[in-house]
């Protein structure tokens, strides 16, 4: 009995500890409930939701495993997004002026770039980016460059992935719009661009009653010079195509290397005119059951383009006429289910997958059979322009029903493919050998393109898929009648696909994206030297180093050599007279990571971004007298607001 009495204090102490522990457990931390289960219950999250959150959440400071480069649609830009977190990392200015990067706000190098990007005598303040293409080495992304097309104004932009900036824009004088591109050959020998809506090629103007005679399709092969990081216009060439409307394209790889495959629609050559009682384009261009996939031997075409007398020049562009292409055996057609969207070459290069969006199948063409038919000259017929047409049934490997409105296909590392199904708004997973559907998953809503991790290279990674949905409807808080697009991240590592995350895109309507392993990218942290010109990726001839600041006047030309460093510009006064031509060479003499300055002049529409080491030049006429503050437009330091100066434009009187 005595011993039991001794136990009392222990029992009390134990109880006290238990109460304290229980108290701590139920005690709400700074964020409310402290355990996962009760937070999930409070927020109405299912186990699957929690699992999705755990698969995507990146704690602060943790990098994403993949980087997705997405077109930005009408924004004319490229979006850089981390996967799996779906965090927007950057918006790269490509075709559209963009103030944060100071792209198109006075910097001379951007003025030159945008001047070279003018078309039809117009300054173009927008672009419609559709299809980014990462540079490849041996059929795999190498992380060096990114090419992006502008559908609206047929142009291709070149982005250097050392600093994620646009370095070059080439215009295509012989296209109305483009859509088949940008895509690259396996070693980025060429960046390929195919036109979409045909326009007259050999004559400046022809009405649509001359459609079949004068309108033409076109594919351009831009020669890429990796050393300079530029497309070499003089070494590039084009090929004349029938006036079908060309769509997406892909380059062959492995056994099909050296060839390119282009979709087309409107093989009917409909010319619309609903107001005149004609069928509108939408039905006229969809009348036949089949359109044509174009099969082009680009390697041979490059040799022919280099030969004397085999090309015609139009607006400075060397073009292989259709007749020469037929004669040389470098252009063939094969029927494809109508209104196709994707032409995607399998990772091993043995098959080409096509889906016609008005046909519920994916059609798998065998490269081996195509080659046999070409070698045996086994053609069913020719089109109105004499281009040989291969027999559909004898070159396909199979067809598989995947759903209504199939569009684009990407691949994984296990021999399976993923096709976006527009009308049924889902993604279908199917496998090649044996040919069968494996799984599907609903997406929200109206999926266009999709992208899997390195999914169009010769060695896809699987793991992640992003469905790029055109409509978001009820997925996000309402923001008025113009809704964001919806990128949905899907886990494809298991047998069943799992939806992980919705990312709204509120800057334009993206089309295609490519996903690269993050460790393939090695961008600069700061520019390699103080006084660096990003446009030439070399030391700037206008660099101003600390101590070299000056103001020089020659007649009415005033040159200001300026430096920027935390937290002042030197000089802080720019005194000029009304009508003077002012040239400011400005260098950020910073070397610290992330110490970016801006240089904005009030009311003169000037803003530069000066990243550490960067040198920029701005030139303008001081046409309005007055006092105009200029200031650093990036919050650079504690004394950022004090980093300013005055442009004093003395009236002429």
């Amino acid at each position, binding site marked *: 009995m005595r011993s039991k009495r001794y136990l009392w204090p222990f029992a009390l102490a134990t109880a006290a500890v238990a109460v304290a522990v229980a108290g701590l457990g139920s005690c709400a931390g700074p964020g409310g409930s402290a355990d996962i289960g009760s937070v999930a219950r409070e927020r109405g999250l299912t186990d699957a939701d929690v699992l999705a959150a755990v698969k995507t959440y990146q704690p602060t400071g943790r990098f994403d495993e993949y980087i997705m480069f997405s077109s930005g649609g009408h924004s004319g830009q490229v979006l850089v997004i981390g996967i799996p977190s779906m965090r927007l990392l950057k918006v790269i200015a490509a075709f559209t002026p963009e103030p944060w990067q100071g792209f198109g706000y006075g910097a001379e190098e951007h003025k030159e770039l945008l001047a070279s990007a003018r078309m039809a005598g117009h300054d173009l303040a927008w672009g419609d980016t559709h299809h980014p293409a990462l540079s490849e080495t041996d059929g795999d992304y190498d992380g060096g460059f990114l090419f992006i097309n502008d559908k609206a104004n047929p142009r291709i932009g070149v982005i250097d992935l050392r600093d994620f900036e646009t370095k070059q824009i080439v215009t295509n004088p012989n296209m109305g719009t483009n859509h088949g591109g940008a895509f690259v050959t396996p070693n980025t020998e060429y960046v390929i661009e195919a036109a979409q809506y045909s326009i007259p090629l050999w004559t400046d103007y022809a009405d649509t009653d001359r459609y079949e005679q004068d309108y033409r399709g076109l594919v351009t092969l831009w020669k890429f010079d990796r050393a300079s990081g530029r497309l070499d216009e003089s070494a590039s060439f084009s090929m004349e195509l029938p006036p079908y409307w060309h769509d997406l394209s892909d380059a062959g790889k492995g056994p099909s290397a050296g060839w390119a495959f282009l979709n087309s629609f409107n093989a009917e050559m409909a010319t619309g005119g609903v107001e005149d009682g004609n069928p509108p384009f939408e039905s006229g261009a969809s009348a036949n059951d089949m359109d044509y996939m174009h099969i082009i031997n680009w390697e041979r075409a490059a040799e022919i383009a280099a030969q004397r007398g085999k090309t015609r020049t139009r607006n400075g562009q060397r073009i292989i006429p259709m007749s020469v292409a037929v004669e040389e055996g470098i252009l063939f057609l094969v029927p494809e289910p109508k209104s196709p969207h994707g032409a995607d070459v399998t990772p091993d290069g043995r098959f080409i997958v096509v889906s016609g969006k008005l046909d519920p199948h994916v059609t798998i063409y065998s490269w081996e059979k195509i080659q046999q038919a070409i070698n045996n000259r086994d053609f069913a017929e020719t089109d109105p322009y004499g281009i040989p047409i291969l027999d559909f049934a004898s070159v396909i490997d199979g067809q598989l029903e995947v759903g209504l409105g199939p569009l684009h296909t990407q691949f994984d590392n296990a021999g399976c493919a993923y096709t976006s199904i527009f009308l049924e708004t889902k993604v279908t997973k199917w496998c090649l050998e044996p040919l069968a559907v494996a799984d599907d998953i609903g997406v929200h809503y109206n999926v266009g393109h999709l992208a899997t991790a390195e999914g169009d290279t010769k060695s896809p990674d699987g793991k992640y898929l992003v469905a790029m949905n055109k409509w978001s409807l009820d997925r996000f808080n309402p923001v008025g009648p113009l809704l964001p697009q919806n990128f949905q991240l899907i886990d494809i590592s298991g047998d069943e696909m799992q939806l992980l995350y919705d990312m709204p895109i509120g800057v334009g309507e993206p089309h295609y994206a490519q996903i690269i392993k993050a460790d393939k990218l090695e961008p600069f942290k700061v520019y390699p030297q103080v006084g660096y010109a990003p446009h030439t990726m070399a030391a700037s001839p206008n660099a101003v180093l600390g101590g070299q600041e000056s103001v020089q006047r020659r007649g009415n030309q005033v040159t200001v050599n300026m430096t920027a460093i935390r937290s002042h510009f030197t000089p802080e006064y720019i005194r000029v007279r009304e009508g003077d031509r002012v040239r400011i060479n400005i260098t950020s003499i910073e070397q610290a990571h992330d110490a970016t300055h801006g240089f904005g002049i009030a009311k003169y529409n000037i803003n530069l971004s000066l990243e550490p080491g960067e040198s920029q030049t701005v030139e303008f006429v001081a046409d309005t007298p007055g006092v105009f503050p200029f200031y650093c437009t990036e919050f650079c*330091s504690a004394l950022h607001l004090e980093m300013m100066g005055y442009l004093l434009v003395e009236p002429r009187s």
Partner: protein
Amino acid sequence: MDQITSFFQGSLSQRSRVLMVVATLILLPCIFLPTWTITLHAPQYPDGLQMQIYPHTVGGDVHEVNILNHYIGMEEIEADEFPEFRFIPFFILRFFLFALLTALVGWVAIAAIGWIDFVVFGAVMLYTLRHWLWEYGNNLAPDAPLSIAPFTPSFIGGTQVGQFTVSSWPAAGAVLMAIAGAIGPLIVLYEWHRRRSGQSK
């Protein structure tokens, strides 16, 4: 006293001379290695900012440290401002030659003079470092954007200056020199012990 005199007039044993060769090998890289490291830590510099003080110059993130220092009116740190950098490498070379000579001829007297010279030099250099730290932390320009109380960073250990923790520690060069310096007393102890045990026999 006679013992001490004869000790200094004597020659070093083979073993001590080998130790002197070791000392030369340790001293030589000190001419090129950083002697002292000053690190600045703040939340927006996750990797810290490091300045390495070499016998002949100061390296590392000096540019960035100067940008930061100008806010509090500190003088710019520039290698040319320090006359010491012009002769320190030659001093180290001199100690190296002393050690080499000792190893070759084996005279205790040379070893002793060299060692004392070395220790005095070390002490003076530590004092100089402390002096410069005082100089930079206490001569702040009065018209600086940020006015803070004058301060003297410790030459060993940490000091808080605004949002920065400044830590100052010996670097590889100083550690090696300390090891080379410790060889002196080691030899004395060894030789003393050796002689005495030799005499008793």
